[in-house]
């Protein structure tokens, strides 16, 4: 049996069309990445979703559905409280938001670590993985952490307010639990996240500025300049608020 070009062309197309259409009918064809993580195949946690399979493309909503963790906890833990719809935040957005850091990485693996400890599931984080202080606070409140897990978290805790690369200037930023609120001073490069971390609420901030709060990582002076106002006009009010919180 001999074949010519005029035979090959339709056969090539037919293979692909029939193959793709057939698998579509069988619900096997997908050009989207699955949003359900793999499950543990054996052992104590067999059948449960494995946090190590959380992908960068997973949204907070995907993670919330799979692991039954409230989206609010995820948003708060990773500094997305001011986002209108935290459901659509993707794990990989952390890297884009906080950038690469000298002291480690805050990204998808940080979410895996948070989820694993939140649910009490086994997980070995990558060497440079960091976790926000707020996330640690939530874990301490809602998870049954072992001493070993507490030690791991302590070594990897970082304050979100310290994550802007332009402000770190190469200094080691990993926070320690010895930091006290007494050291907090309002400066031009203080960020909204630092205010939130300190305990000032979004409402209090917006009341002082008289307009919606900026992004968590935004410096107060930048925010003021971008909105056509002087930072110094608000500094005194913020300092007074900080002082009242210290008491």
């Amino acid at each position, binding site marked *: 049996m001999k074949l*010519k070009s005029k035979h090959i*062309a339709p056969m090539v197309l037919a293979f*692909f069309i029939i193959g793709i259409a057939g698998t579509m009918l069988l619900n*096997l*064809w997908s050009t989207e990445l699955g949003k359900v993580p*793999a499950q543990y195949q054996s052992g104590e946690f067999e059948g449960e979703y494995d946090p190590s399979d959380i992908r960068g493309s997973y949204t907070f909503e995907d993670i919330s559905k799979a692991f039954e963790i409230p989206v609010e906890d995820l948003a708060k833990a990773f500094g997305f409280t001011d986002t209108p719809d935290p459901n659509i935040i993707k794990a990989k957005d952390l890297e884009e938001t906080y950038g690469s850091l000298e002291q480690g990485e805050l990204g998808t693996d940080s979410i895996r670590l948070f989820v694993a400890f939140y649910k009490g599931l086994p997980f070995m984080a990558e060497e440079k993985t960091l976790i926000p202080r707020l996330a640690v606070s939530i874990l301490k409140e809602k998870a049954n952490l072992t001493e070993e897990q507490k030690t791991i978290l302590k070594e990897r805790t970082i304050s979100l307010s310290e994550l802007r690369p332009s402000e770190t200037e190469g200094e080691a930023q990993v926070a320690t639990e010895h930091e006290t609120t007494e050291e907090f001073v309002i400066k031009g490069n203080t960020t909204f996240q630092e205010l939130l971390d300190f305990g000032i609420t979004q409402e209090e901030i917006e009341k002082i500025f008289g307009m919606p709060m900026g992004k968590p990582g935004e410096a107060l002076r930048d925010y003021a300049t971008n909105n056509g106002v002087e930072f110094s006009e608000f500094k005194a009010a913020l300092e007074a608020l900080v002082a009242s919180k210290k008491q």
Partner: protein
Amino acid sequence: MGKKKSDYTRLYVQIFFFALIAVISINHTLAEQGKSTIPFLSSASLHALCPFGGVVTIYEYFVSGRFIKKIHESSWILMWITFALTLVFGPVFCGWVCPFGAFQEWFGKIGKKIFRKRYNHFIPYGLDRWLRYLRYIVLVWIVYVTAITGKIVFADYDPYFVLFNFWTGEVALIGVILLLVIISMSLFVERAFCKYGCPLGAVLGIFNFFRIFSIKRNTTTCIDCGACTRNCPMNIHVDTGGTVRNHQCITCMQCTSEHACPVDDTVELMTGRMEVAK
């Protein structure tokens, strides 16, 4: 025997697949940017539309039952469709479908205009013969590194990805450099990447040893003019044997009596025994 009529069937198929992938890639970019997309057309990522994604995840799939990161079910299915197609007709995927192969081929026409008969014959046969096995080293390296890391580590080096994503800003510099090197090489060597670097071509090339339809030469009617060999973009010596079992054949059919061979029914894509003229 006589002058052959030009046949553009393969070119049309190549243009179709090249345009399809290009438009889907643009659609994907639009979707990523939250802009309105081209209706009735997929906005899948390039990773979802490459059968090689299936190849690199074979190990992970059989060990853990899941795909490596960024690999989709569609890649897995396209791999099996391509394998089936190749088992029957040989690597027609390379010769007819692959947009990157087509791109090199079209670019190579410039080199053909410039260098004429010297084109595609710059590398000495002795050296070229061994360089052809480089793509197997590339294949083994990619499969191995992917298996131990669970990530598509070659993504940054993938010139095919760069070709259809250079406008996104997501391509790595090393990938851009590799693409430029391949484009430059295409001016001297036809399908340089296919010959020396393509890991998917390496896999599909193995099918040449047991494919159902093969390129066969009728040694009794052959006039030994060498037209088949001269026209082979992969520099295969079609005129020295009966059935082409070379791992580099891409079933482009340029050597056949339909195209280069001046004698009818002498070089054919066929199955079964070649009838010997009495």
